[in-house]
C-alpha cells in the first residue's frame, strides 16, 4: 500500500488524484484511515463525550516554556545583533538526500523549506545577501552568487536538482570561505549547512579548514536531517553557531526558520562602518526611461538613483552603473524591532487574579476577549511589566512574534502615571 512513491514531486496533482484512487484500489477515505489515523486526534472530556484534541492549550504552554528558557539564557548586557548579514546556504545533494523518510524525499522538503526561509530571511533582513552552494559527488559548487533579492535564488532552487555521490563538508567550507573573504568588513559572515549525509568525503584535514573559518570569523550552523555527527557539532562549537537535528518535516521547518532573525553578534566579528546609501524617489507616473535591470524601455513606476539618475525597477538593490546601495526607509524600519525589542510579558496565575489588591480586568486589553473561561474562572493571562495592562496568551504570542509593539505602552502617553494613579 505504498502510494507515497507514486506521487509526483511538483506539477499538477489534481489530474493525478483521480487516477491514483482507481489505480491503487484504495478510495481517498480509505487512504485517510491508513495514513492519517484520525481517531488518534480525539479525546474524551469530563462527561465522557468525544471532542477533538484542543491544541491551543498545548501551543500556549510550549510558547511560555520557550520564553522562560530564552529569558534564563539571555545575558544582562545589551546584546548587539548583526543586522547586515552575508549568509551562504549549503545544501547537501548527496545520495542520502534522496532518502524517503521525509515525504516525498529529503531533497524536496529541503527545497520547499529553503524557499520559504529565503522569503522570510529577506523580510526580516532587507539589507542582507544570500548565496546558495550545493555539494555532491565529493565536490562543492556555487548554485547562485551572493545576491540581495530572493527571486534568483528561488528560481535556481526550483530547477532540477539531482542527488548523487557523497557530500564533502570540507570542500563546501573552503568554497564558502573563499567567497566570504571578498565581502565588506562590516558584514556578518554566516553559513547554514543542511546536511543529510552521515559521512563526509574530504581531500585534506577538515580541522584545518575549521580553524581557517574560525579565524575568518565565519559563523557556521548546521541542521542535520539524519543523525548527530561529531564533526558538525565540533564545527558549530568552534565557530559559535548552532547545531540541531530535525525529527520530522515540521520540526525541520521550525529549526530553519529560527535562523531568520539576526543572531546575537559577537562584537569583534565585524567592524562598524558608515555605509553610503541612496534613498531614491519614485519616478513620476508618465515618465519613460530605460531600466538597468531589464535593459528595456519602461513607463512610470520605477525609482531614480540619486547619484547617477538611472532607473531601477525595485528596491533594495545596488545601482548597476554607479554601485550605490539603494533602499527605502521602510526597509531600514523593518530591522528596527531587532534593535528595540519589547520585554517579555509576565505571567499572572489564575489564583492571584482573585486578589483584590491588584487591579485585574476581565478582558484582554488588545483584543477585548474575555479572560474568564467557562464557569467564570480566570484563565492564565500575562501582563506587560511596563504599562501593567493584561493580555490573553494569543495576543502575547502575536505581539512578540509579529507586531513587536506593546499596545498598552503605545496607548498611554504617560504610562508611569497610569500605574501611580491606580
Amino acid at each position, binding site marked *: 500500500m505504498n502510494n507515497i512513491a507514486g506521487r509526483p514531486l511538483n506539477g499538477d496533482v489534481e489530474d493525478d488524484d483521480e487516477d491514483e484512487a482507481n489505480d491503487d484500489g484504495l478510495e481517498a477515505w480509505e487512504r485517510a484511515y491508513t495514513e492519517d489515523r484520525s481517531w488518534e486526534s480525539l479525546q474524551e472530556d469530563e462527561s465522557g463525550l468525544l471532542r477533538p484534541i484542543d491544541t491551543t492549550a498545548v501551543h500556549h504552554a510550549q510558547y511560555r516554556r520557550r520564553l522562560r528558557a530564552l529569558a534564563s539564557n539571555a545575558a544582562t548586557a545589551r546584546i548587539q545583533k548583526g543586522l547586515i548579514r552575508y549568509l551562504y546556504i549549503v545544501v547537501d545533494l548527496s545520495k542520502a538526500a534522496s532518502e524517503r523518510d521525509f515525504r516525498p524525499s529529503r531533497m524536496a522538503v529541503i527545497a520547499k523549506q529553503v524557499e520559504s526561509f529565503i522569503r522570510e530571511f529577506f523580510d526580516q533582513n532587507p539589507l542582507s545577501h544570500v548565496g546558495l552552494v550545493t555539494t555532491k559527488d565529493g565536490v562543492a559548487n556555487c548554485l547562485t552568487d551572493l545576491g540581495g533579492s530572493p527571486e534568483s535564488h528561488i528560481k535556481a532552487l526550483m530547477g532540477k536538482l539531482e542527488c548523487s555521490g557523497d557530500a564533502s563538508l570540507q570542500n563546501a567550507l573552503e568554497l564558502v570561505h573563499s567567497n566570504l573573504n571578498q565581502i565588506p568588513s562590516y558584514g556578518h559572515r554566516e553559513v547554514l549547512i543542511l546536511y543529510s549525509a552521515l559521512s563526509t568525503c574530504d581531500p585534506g584535514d577538515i580541522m584545518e579548514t575549521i580553524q581557517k573559518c574560525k579565524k575568518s570569523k565565519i559563523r557556521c550552523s548546521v541542521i542535520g536531517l539524519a543523525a548527530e555527527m561529531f564533526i558538525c557539532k565540533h564545527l558549530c562549537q568552534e565557530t559559535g553557531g548552532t547545531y540541531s537535528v530535525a525529527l520530522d518535516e515540521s520540526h525541520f521547518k521550525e529549526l530553519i526558520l529560527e535562523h531568520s532573525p539576526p543572531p546575537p553578534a559577537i562584537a569583534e*566579528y565585524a567592524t562598524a562602518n558608515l555605509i553610503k546609501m541612496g534613498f531614491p524617489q519614485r519616478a513620476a507616473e508618465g515618465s519613460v526611461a530605460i531600466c538597468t535591470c531589464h535593459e528595456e524601455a519602461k513607463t512610470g513606476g520605477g525609482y531614480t538613483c540619486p547619484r547617477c539618475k538611472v532607473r531601477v525597477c525595485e528596491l533594495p538593490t545596488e545601482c548597476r552603473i554607479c554601485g550605490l546601495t539603494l533602499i527605502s526607509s521602510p526597509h531600514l524600519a523593518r530591522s528596527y524591532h531587532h534593535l528595540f525589542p519589547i520585554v517579555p510579558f509576565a505571567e499572572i496565575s489564575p489564583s492571584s487574579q482573585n486578589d483584590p489588591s491588584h487591579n485585574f480586568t476581565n478582558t484582554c486589553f488588545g483584543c477585548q476577549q474575555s479572560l474568564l473561561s467557562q464557569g467564570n474562572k480566570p484563565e492564565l493571562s500575562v501582563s506587560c511589566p511596563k504599562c501593567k495592562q493584561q493580555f490573553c496568551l494569543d495576543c502575547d504570542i502575536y505581539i512578540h512574534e*509579529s507586531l513587536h509593539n506593546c499596545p498598552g505602552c503605545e496607548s*498611554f502617553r504617560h504610562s508611569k502615571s497610569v500605574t501611580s494613579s491606580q
Partner: protein
Amino acid sequence: MASAPSKHYTDDISLLVVTLDTNPFFWSTFSFHFSDFLSQVLAFLNSILLLGQLNQVVVIATGCNSCSYIYDSSSDRNHASTNGTMPALYSNLLHNLDEFAAKDHQFTTDHKPPTVPSSLLSGALSMALCYIQRAFRAGPMHPQPRILCLHGSTDGPEQYVAIMNAIFSAQHSSVPVDSCYIGSNNSAFLQQASYITGGIYYRPPQLEGLFQYLSTVFATDLHSREYLRLPKSLGVDFRASCFCHKQTIDMGYVCSVCLSIFCEHHDKCSTCSSVFGQAQSDVASADSRKRKAS
C-alpha cells in the same frame, strides 16, 4: 503596490476597524466642528452595517493621551436606546465616547504637554491588529478585516518605529489600512501605511460632503474593490530623514550596527557609540580599561 488581494472565504463580508481621531488639541483649532464630523461618521458606520447583515464594525478612539475601544457591533453589551430617538449604534458609541473623552481629559490636566501633541495612532493600530488576529482565530469562515484611519492630527515622529512595526505586521497578515486624512498637510505615515499594505489614502477636499467621500471610497469590501476606480496613490515620499538635522535626504550614510542615518561622515555613531572603521574589540578594551581605572 498592488491592492490587497481578496481571499476566498465569505468574500463580501467585512470587519471594519475604525480608528477615530479625538485629539482635543487638534479639534479645538480646526475649522470643521467635531460634532458635524461625528454625525457624518456615524451615518457612514450605520450604512456599513446595513450593507450586509454579517458586517462588523469596531471603533477605537485615538486620544492624545490614551486609546480605547468605544464600540463593537458584535458585542452583546450593546443596548437599544431607551427612548428610540436614535439607532442603538449611535447611543452606545456616544455614551462610550463621552466616558473616554472625560478620562482622556483627566490625563491632560495631570500632565501639561509642552507642544501640541499628536494623537496616539500607533496604539490604536496595535489594538486594531490584535482584534483582527482574534477574528482570524475564530475559525475558517470569518469576515475580511480592514482598518480605516479617520485622522487629522499631525504625525508624531516619536511614534515612527511603532507605526512601522504595525504597518509591517498588517502587511504580513494581508490587512489593508485605508486612511481618510482631514488635516491640512498630507500625513507621511498614513501615506506609507496605505501604500505598503495595499489600502487607499484619500484626503477629502470638502469636509461638508464627508459622508459622500466615505461611502463612495471607503465603504466597499475588498472583493468589490477591483471593479471600482478608486483614488490612486501619488507621490509617496520614501526618503529618510537624517538623525542629526531631521532633514529629508536622498543620499546619506548608514551605521552598520544600529542603522542610524546621517547626512555627513562622522567618526562616531551618536546612537550606538560605535567608532567607525575600527574593530570593535579595540573599543571594548579601551572602555574596560577606563572602567578599571575609575
